């Protein structure tokens, strides 16, 4: 795409509708973005035992996440090397091998081609089995239980890819009391389709504090953990609101920084046990994290299509591209592994009524993404770029609060209420990926 320059003008906050609806751009995205970037695949707790597997998706393609007999975790393309048949059509299970139902080639859980009918008689020396195992990702990382992978051997390590964003992603993945890791998935991954381009939800989660109107009906009805509004607002009301972006990485998050001298905030009042649990967590958190205890997360997006939501309802969403005009959403729900059963159950109920296609809140997001996309496809509409001017030029790369420095390009929107700092950072990186010839051009 030689004309990306004119389509994505981040400095002026103008982005063409073409990048959402154009078929050729979509096709390029598969090669330039999804075949290169680190993508979220699943969670360790989904495959606890040897031979356990779940089927997941990377970009448009089906992959198998499994643990081999030796306990090592792998991610394979779910396609036979012989004629491409999907070797696993189950969503999950436990197996010793994946046998292809077409001609019976079978692959061990470490991907090696172990079974070939009539191997000696029919193939003799011709078939070099070692070269025909399942296609495996080039790099894989198990980061605090979350499994990430990339098809590109020249991609940087996951930690380099994550960069300074680590501090924020950890807000989701560490236990609420500040211990490293310690989160698990509660059973059941939501999967559903939305008729819009995959970047609508990705940018919305990257830092859209601005769409309160979408959810006003929920605020009126009240589904929050304290029975009011969407969430417990009080602690946020006395915190600084920060839109945190890493334009050079594409990652971003909505964050809240509480006052250095702020007291604990009451929450979950109508559920004493839960309220009690979180109070204890926060006490421990202060002890363990020092000044960082003050930092709380919200929704964010890790480039390109994974969105952590770092507070209740704590979730990880992946926006899988399914053609330029459709997105398949997968949603994982996280809780502290060792939280009391009652707390887990309380949160489970909250997640269900809040999130996904059966959640009161996100139904309205999807309606908006659906028709925002649809109304942007026409020959006239495509002449008018979207507006990303909000908060242009207000961000700092050197944020500090009472001696606490935070990484990232940060826009303090406590007064402004909202900015498009994060969206701009996201699309800046998106354009780099689309223009890059290889990872060489993407690492500075």
């Amino acid at each position, binding site marked *: 795409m030689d004309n990306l320059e004119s389509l994505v003008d981040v400095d002026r906050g103008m982005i063409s509708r073409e990048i959402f609806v154009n078929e050729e751009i979509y096709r390029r995205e598969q090669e330039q973005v999804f075949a290169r970037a680190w993508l979220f695949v699943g969670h360790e707790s989904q495959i606890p035992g040897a031979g356990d597997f779940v089927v997941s998706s990377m970009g448009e393609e089906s992959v198998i996440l499994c643990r081999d007999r030796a306990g090592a975790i792998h991610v394979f393309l779910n396609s036979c090397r012989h004629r491409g048949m999907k070797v696993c*059509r189950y969503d999950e299970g436990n197996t010793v091998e994946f046998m292809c139902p077409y001609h019976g080639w079978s692959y061990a859980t470490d991907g090696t081609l172990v079974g070939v009918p009539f191997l000696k008689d029919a193939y003799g020396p011709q078939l070099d089995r070692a070269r025909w195992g399942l296609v495996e990702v080039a790099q894989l990382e198990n980061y605090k239980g979350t499994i990430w992978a990339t098809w590109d051997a020249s991609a940087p390590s996951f930690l380099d890819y994550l960069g300074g964003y680590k501090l924020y992603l950890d807000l989701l993945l560490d236990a609420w009391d500040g211990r490293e890791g310690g989160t698990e998935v509660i059973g059941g991954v939501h*999967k559903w389709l939305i008729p819009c381009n995959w970047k609508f939800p990705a940018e919305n989660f990257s830092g859209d504090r601005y769409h309160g109107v979408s959810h006003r009906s929920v605020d009126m009805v009240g589904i929050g953990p304290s029975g009011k509004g969407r969430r417990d607002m009080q602690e946020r009301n006395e915190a600084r609101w920060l839109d945190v972006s890493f334009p050079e990485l594409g990652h971003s998050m909505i964050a809240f920084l509480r006052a250095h001298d702020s007291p604990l905030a009451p929450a979950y009042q109508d559920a004493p046990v839960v309220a009690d649990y979180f109070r204890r967590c926060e006490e421990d958190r202060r002890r363990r994290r020092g000044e960082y205890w003050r930092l709380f997360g919200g929704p964010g997006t890790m480039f390109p299509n994974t969105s952590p939501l770092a507070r209740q309802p704590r979730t990880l969403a992946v926006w899988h591209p399914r053609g330029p005009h459709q997105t398949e959403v997968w949603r994982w729900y996280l809780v502290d592994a060792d939280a009391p059963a009652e707390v887990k159950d309380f949160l489970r109920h909250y997640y*269900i009524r809040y999130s996904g*296609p*059966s959640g009161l809140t996100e139904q309205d997001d999807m309606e908006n993404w659906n028709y925002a996309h649809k109304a942007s496809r026409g020959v006239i509409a495509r002449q008018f770029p979207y507006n990303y001017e909000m908060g242009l030029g207000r961000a700092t790369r050197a944020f500090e609060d009472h001696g606490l420095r935070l990484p990232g390009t940060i826009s303090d929107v406590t007064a402004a209420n909202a900015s498009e700092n994060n969206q701009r950072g996201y699309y800046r990186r998106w354009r780099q990926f689309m223009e890059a010839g290889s990872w060489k051009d993407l690492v500075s």
Partner: protein
Amino acid sequence: MSDRLARLLLKEDIEAFLYQEAELLDERRYEAWLDLFTDDAHYFMPMRRNVPHDEPEREFTRAGVDVNWFDEGKDTLTRRVRQILTGIHWAEEPPSRTCHMISNVQVLATDPADPTPTEVTVRSRFLVYRNRVETETDFLVGRREDVLRRVDGGWKIARRRIVLDQSVLLAKNLT
């Protein structure tokens, strides 16, 4: 004969109840619909997975344990209804055109001795056709198992289990 007749009238009675429920939903009389549930009602719809035929126990997510499509009581149902009534629940404004087709109503064996049981378990099938705005169209098809309780003369839904015949939800929402 007379007890077969009693069962027949019972079934007739319950069919009428289920049809009236569909009527209330499609007429968008959501508050009246809500009244059809007992206060302790449990509304449950699991997710489904593709699993080997010999591991059926893995197929459905579990009530009270896993994340499901629905797993809630009347309180949350009430909030859903109230949200629609705000008129700014964009996913239902403008309102959808829905049609709940109910069939295969089966009243599971009740004590023949008791012609007027206070609780009955009822199986039925549904096809929900939803069309909205211009051409947006969904089909939601599956089975339900309800426990109906007799409350001063009429019936109310005490438990509902909905089995949708989809794994990846082929719709953008379940309103």
